[in-house]
């Protein structure tokens, strides 16, 4: 028996979301069990079963969330751009002052 992780798409166009896992001897039964356990009420438009052994994981915060300032990647850093537009056009100048 192998553990298969189960992913479910709940409506066309949506992403596949992890919903849990099943224990099965092969791919075909894994799909049968996944349907029985995770889509009894027609919750899925698509199911994936993936052998757990095939999943490669990383949970290292130093790697995933390095303690560096990446502000230039976020919208917050571009507030100044709005100010520049106001300076050029003169609109709302009094409020900015």
């Amino acid at each position, binding site marked *: 028996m192998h553990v298969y992780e189960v992913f479910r798409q709940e409506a066309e166009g949506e992403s596949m979301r992890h919903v849990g896992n099943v*224990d099965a*001897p*092969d791919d075909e039964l894994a799909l049968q*069990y996944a349907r*029985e356990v995770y889509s*009894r*009420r027609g919750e899925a438009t698509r199911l994936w079963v993936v052998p757990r052994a095939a999943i490669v994981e990383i*949970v290292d915060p130093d790697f995933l969330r390095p303690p560096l300032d990446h502000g230039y990647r976020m919208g917050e850093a571009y507030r100044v751009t709005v100010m520049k537009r106001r300076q050029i056009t003169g609109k709302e100048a009094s409020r900015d002052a």
Partner: protein
Amino acid sequence: MTDEQRIEEFKRAVQAGHKVEAGDWMPEEYRARLTKFIEMHANSELMGALPERDWILRAPTLQRKLAVTAKIQDEVGHAQLLYRLVEDLGKPREQIFQDLISGKTKFHNVFHYPTKSWGDVGIIAWLVDAAAIHSQSALQRSSYAPYARTMRRICWEEAFHLKHGEDIVLTCMMGTARQKRLMQEALERWWEPLMMFHGPPAPPETDKDLEWGIKSRPNEQLRQDFLTKYVRRIQEIGLTIPDPKLRYDERTGRWAYTEPDWSKLYTIVTGNGPASQARLGFRRLSYEETAWVRQVVTGGAQLTA
């Protein structure tokens, strides 16, 4: 860092809201408590299918028969989800079943009683499932994330069961005097087990499962929540709750009730309830009768491997 420091750090982290995943390091005590807690929950889902199973053939209409069957399938499905969690914590399924049928591990008190009438089916699906939703909703905040996520799915399905049960009860309460009596008698049979359902009111500071964040709400608080939500709903449809001491105390903001006999709860969950041995006997029989299925499934795996 010593082991003790590591354990203390883990405990502080879960108390501050850190969520633990299946593959993460965890202290042995946490793993052991989690295994015991979830295994008991899983056993209860599986054994909980049996009292209602008796009513598939006796359900009054085809619609009810289908609904009861679907509920039973859901309960067994919940057991499947929960047994997977227990397996991931390190206990093999074979061992889980052996421990259940030999009486070594426990299941919930309410599944140790017989179902005497169709009234019981309605009261169980409505009120036992309502009591269960209160504890299971609180478990959505468990520090063990796979359990918390499983609770979201289970609560979603339990909500249908509750409606199914309420519909059975209301239908009878709109019926003849005999049908109303059927419901009243069922409520009288189930009130004491319901009041025991959330367990003795242990002081929260001594409850280790709370300390580790395995559960998030104390037993007595769950019972109070249940009473706040359901006492009025039960009374306003013409049913009488069989507890003369039951009343809401405005001063303390709490429900007063007749204290259940907690030693009786212990006697029941250790396999001495009115239906305990019959249920375990049935589970043992069905485990033996389905041995060939397990052999075919796992044997097939060996052939293709």
